[in-house]
Each structure stands twice: as C-alpha cells, then as structure tokens.
C-alpha cells in the first residue's frame, strides 16, 4: 500500500496544484450535476402535472353544435336584422347521474350560473362595470353573479385556489335545497354582513321573485381575478356561491334539475380516456365532454424545452469537461515523467505506478463531486429558474393563441343562456397560463442517482486519461524515461 502513501504525500506537498485540480473537477462536476438535476426535475414536473390535473372530465352544452344550429336557423328565417341568439341546452342531472355510475368515476361537481339584483344590500360597483354596457348578447343580467355549485370545494375557483373560505364554512352537497350561501369578504365588509345574516336578492329572469339567502360562509377572492375581468363584467366580489338547486330556482322553473357544466372526477389519470369514451355513449350531440388537461399539456410542452436544454447542458459540459479533465490529467502525468522513471528504476510495478495516480485523482474527484453535491441544488435551481421562465413565456404565448382560437373551453365560467356575462375566454386562458407557469416551477434536488452518475462519469474519465497518458511512458525502457 506504499502507493497510497505516495499519493497522499504528493497531494499535500503540491497543495496549489491539488487545489486547482479540485476546483476544475468541481466546476465540471457541478455543471454536469446541474444539468442532470434539471432534467430529472423537469420529467418529475411533467409526471406530477399529469397526476394533478389530468383526472377530470367536464360535461357542458356543445357550443359548436349550438352555433351551427343558430346560423342555420338564421339563414332559414331570412331575417338578417334580427340579432342572433344562441340557445344552449343545460345539462340534465339525470344524465349526470348516469355518468356518475360509470366505473372509475369518483364523484362530480355541478356548476350553475345565474344572475340577480341585490335588494337588501349594495353590490360593489367598479368603474368598469359602472361605465360598461349591460351584458352582451342581450342576456338578462343583474349586479350580482350567482354561482351555483354542488360544493364550493369542488368548484373551479376554489379548487384552483382563486377563492378561499375565510369565515364560516363552504357549501356542501347537504346544502342542496337550502338557501345557504357564501359571499365575498369585500361585499360583506361594505355591507357590514357576517356569517348568520340573511340577505335578499331579486331574480332577473324566470319569476323575478325576491329570495332571501342565509350567509353560512365568507370567502376571499384572489386579487388577480379582478384583472382578468373584461369590461362590462361584474366585479368578482359580487359573486355569491349558492347550491346549484338555488341557482336553478333563480334562473327559472325550466332550469330545474340541470347544470351549466359538470366536472367529473376520475379515480386515476390513466382511466380518464376510457371513462370519457363510455360517457360519450350516454350523451347526445347537444353536449360535449372535454378533458381538462391543458395545464398538463402546457407543463409538458414547457418542460419539453427544459428537458432538451438540460440534455444539451449535460452533453456539452460532459464532453467539454471530459476533454479538459483528460488533458489536465495527461499533462500532469507527462510532467511527472522523472518520477515515473525513478519508480521504474527501483523496480516498482507498472500497476502500482498507475494505482498511485489513480488514488490521487480519485481523492480529487471525491472532493469535486462533494462540491457538486453541495452546490448542485443551488446552481441547478438558479439555472432552472432561468430556463423555465423563458420556456413558460414562449409556451404561454403560443398556448394563448391556440386556446384563444378554440371556442367553448370546458370551464364552467363560459357564458350560457340566461347567465351573467361571465369571464372573457381570453382572460381565462391567461389565468390558466399563469397557473401552468407556477406549476412549471422546478424543484431541483440532489439525488443519490445523480451523484452516482456523476461519480461514475468522473471515474471513467480519470481512469481513461491516466491509462492514455501513462501508457506512453510506461511502455518505454526506464533508461529512455530517465536519460534524455
């Protein structure tokens, strides 16, 4: 084991050189590590996006079919002056229950949009809603948006984190048939309302009757929601969550046992396609089923570019690093020609001469990988933030264009007959893109696998470089090494 001792003596006697070697090795290893980490983080992000957003199916009226019908009826009536009206058939709950009985359907939440006018209290008026015209398409509108849900926790706004309960409780399926509601905190503050109070609203369609509502909870809407409102839209604080049955009552008797949209939860993302196929058999062409996998698609495409970037980093640094490290090792060994000659003149075996160099560089590699392990998360994280930021900007732009050109998103906020003006589709897409961007944030963490890969790579490089450099010297007669 004398070669071990020699290796140690060499490393400590030539501290400057050892330190330089460690720094170079550490830097190379650090970048390879960062690349490896970003790559695995990107594929993990795709996998988790798939798991988190892919497991729902939304049932809505088929807007495309409705538009087609509207155009053909316009043409046949031959009255170009008449404003076209779009009639969307609400989803029947009987159909919903049929679908809910399918295998792998874990549950569903229904959404009913309605409008009403505040009676016992004041609605919040924003400058845009005050100046704006009444809702588009001649739909009856009020100053209060009624969002009827089977449960608040299952509704899109709450599930997406755009709204959260701050006082009291949310609505549950047991609230169906009651007049329990949840109102926004701004609306509550302005009208000095609290949980347990009763308010009244007047329906804008159907019977136009006055209904009294009982506040069971107060929620807070995310501030970004206001920015995503189009002109003429009601302030988001004016949205009152009710049970879907109450919303239907406000809309009118013909809307009994219906919903604007229903979101089915499927037990596993992998089962979604099969469930959709089966459910499609149960509905007519007036309705459409859509998968809410846009987040997943967006994360997937943005992560695709991250993965390809990380791949390039790994390859580039690995190749450049291999060359640099190999050259340094070769130079170092050539410079130690006389040392090799002395060892050979003493009869030291070639194997032990190589072993000494290997031990020296192994120690250097060990520290280098240590540096990479310690700094990998930091450097990888910084690099990942940059890459993700540019990737997300690119994809949200293209995704925005794609989504904008597509009519009838699956989200329940799309305006429907008799409903309020609702959110602009473009705004919804923008919000979606932001959401995807947040999900695309990579968590870069050093893994044992990455350390092992790095170590293997480094080991292979130094072993090959030592053999390449030493072979040229060791095959010579010692005389030629020593006396030249």
């Amino acid at each position, binding site marked *: 084991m004398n070669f071990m001792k020699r290796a140690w003596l060499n490393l400590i006697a*030539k501290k400057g050189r050892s330190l330089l070697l460690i720094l170079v090795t550490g830097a190379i290893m650090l970048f390879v590590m960062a690349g490896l980490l970003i790559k695995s983080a990107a594929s993990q992000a795709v996998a988790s996006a798939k798991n988190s957003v892919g497991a729902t199916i939304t049932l809505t009226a088929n807007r495309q079919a409705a538009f087609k019908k509207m155009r053909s009826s316009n043409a046949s009536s031959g009255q170009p002056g008449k404003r076209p009206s779009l009639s969307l058939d609400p989803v029947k709950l009987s159909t919903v229950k049929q679908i809910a009985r399918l295998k792998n359907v874990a549950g569903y939440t229904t959404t009913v949009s309605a409008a009403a006018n505040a009676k016992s209290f004041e609605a919040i008026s924003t400058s845009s809603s005050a100046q704006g015209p009444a809702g588009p398409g001649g739909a009856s509108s009020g100053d209060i948006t009624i969002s009827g849900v089977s449960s608040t926790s299952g509704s899109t706004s709450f599930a997406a984190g755009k709204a959260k309960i701050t006082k009291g409780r949310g609505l549950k399926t047991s609230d169906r048939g009651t007049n329990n509601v949840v109102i926004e905190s701004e609306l509550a503050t302005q009208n000095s309302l609290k949980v347990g109070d009763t308010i009244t609203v007047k329906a804008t369609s159907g019977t136009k009757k006055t209904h009294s509502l009982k506040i069971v909870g107060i929620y807070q809407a995310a501030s970004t929601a206001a920015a995503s409102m189009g002109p003429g839209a009601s302030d988001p604080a004016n949205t009152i969550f009710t049970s879907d049955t109450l919303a239907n009552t406000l809309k009118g008797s013909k809307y009994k046992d219906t919903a604007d949209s229903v979101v089915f939860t499927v037990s596993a993302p992998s089962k979604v396609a099969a469930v959709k196929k089966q459910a499609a058999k149960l509905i007519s062409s007036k309705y459409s089923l859509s998968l809410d996998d846009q987040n997943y698609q967006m994360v997937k495409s943005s992560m695709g570019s991250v993965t390809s970037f990380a791949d390039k980093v790994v390859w580039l640094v690995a190749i450049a690093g291999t060359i640099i490290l190999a050259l340094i090792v070769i130079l170092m060994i050539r410079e130690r020609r006389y040392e090799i000659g002395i060892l050979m*003149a003493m*009869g030291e075996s070639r194997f032990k001469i190589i072993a000494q160099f290997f031990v020296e560089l192994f120690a250097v590699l060990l520290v280098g990988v240590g540096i990479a392990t310690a700094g990998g998360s930091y450097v990888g994280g910084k690099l990942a933030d940059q890459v993700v930021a540019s990737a997300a900007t690119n994809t949200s732009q293209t995704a925005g264009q794609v989504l904008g050109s597509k009519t009838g998103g699956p989200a329940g906020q799309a305006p429907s007959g008799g409903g309020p003006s609702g959110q602009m589709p473009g705004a919804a897409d923008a919000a979606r893109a932001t959401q995807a961007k947040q999900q695309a944030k990579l968590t870069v963490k050093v893994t044992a696998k990455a350390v092992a890969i790095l170590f293997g790579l480094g080991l292979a490089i130094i072993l090959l470089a030592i053999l390449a450099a030493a072979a040229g010297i060791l095959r010579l007669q010692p*005389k030629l090494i020593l*006396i030249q």
Partner: protein
Amino acid sequence: MLETENLTYWYTNQADYLFQGEHLQFEPGHSYAIVGQSGSGKTTMVSLLAGLDTPKAGTIRIDGQDIAQIGLAHYRRRKVSVVFQAFNLFTYMSALENLMTAMAITKAAHAGDQAFAQAMLQRLGLTDEQMRQNVQRLSGGQQQRVAIARTMVCDAPLVVADEPTGNLDEANTDEVIALFNQIAHEQGKCVIIVTHEPSVAAQCDGVLRLAHRTFTWEKTPAPQLAKKG
C-alpha cells in the same frame, strides 16, 4: 558477482554499434570507475548493467543468474540501486520520506524503520531539520548524499552511479566518492561509477575505459582489498 557475456549494443538509428561482444566481470567489495569520451556509450553500458534497458545481444548475469530470466523489474527492485547526476529523488517528499519510500518499494530488510533511515542521513551529514523538509530545498551536494544514503539503506548488492559528482564542487565530489568507497568496502557491495573526472577514477579500486568501441581495464582492483561477503 556481476558479469557480462558477449554484451553488444547499438542504437537502431545509428550506423555502428557502441560495443560488441564484451566479457566483463565485477566483484563485490570493490568500486569501479567507467571512463571514456563523451558519447562513447558509458551511460548506455551502465543502463544495461542496472537493468534499465535490454542488450541487443549477450547476457548479463548476477551471481550466475541471467537478469533477463530473473525479470528486469525484479532485478531492479532487489539487486541494483542507481544514482544519477540529477533527478534522483521524489521531489514531493522529504529526504526521510525518500528513504522510507525506497525501502518500502525494494522491500529492504529495514523497510519501515525510520530510526535506521534517520541515522543513515545523519551519518551523511544531514541535520534533523534538513531531512524533514522537502528535498528540493537541499543543495545539490546534499541531494546527492540523500541519493547515496538511499542506496545504503536498501539491500541491493549492486550500486550503479552515472556521473554522480557531475554537479558538485571539488570538496563535495571527494566526500561523495569517499561515501561510495565506504559502500563498497564496509557494506561489501559492488559499486560501478561512470565519471569523466580523472580524480574520481583515481579513487576507485578498478578503472574501465571505453574507447574505440572496446572496454579495456586500466586498473584492476587488488584482490586483497576485496572483502568476501
């Protein structure tokens, strides 16, 4: 103890051989000087004797055994110890570490015995401090003494030196040659020194001259000087 039979060598890129069919014999307990003009082939000869190169023809035997048969690496490890004009020592070690390393590699009887190595360096005039600092901080004469101390702590019966005094002044040269004579006469080893200095050759027991591609004895060691061991 060391003999060459029909020893022949030439460099492939040169027109003529350096020497041919040489029969030479060296005995333990004696010091030998090899002299001759520059470029005549002295270094080449001792490289063959030290097992650092292989002859083109002929054999070298130590105690009757062909060194090619023993294996050159083994021969170098166990039988011969070399001292050159320069580049003798591991530059990243102290004098003491150099000796310890050499003893370990050659599996000397005193391998691992630091006190023994220390005593040897002390005997050769190195202070405790000098033997513990990096060898590059020692003078040329001190470094050469370390190389000689190294041959003394190792067990190899043959010591080969190529112009070991080439970089030294007169006083240091005399000291170093005196040490080589000690190795021959006290340790009973066979010492072969290449030199171009007549004064060095004069202090050796035997003198072998290489001229006109032939080795001739200028002086043969007196038999009574030999200490049989």
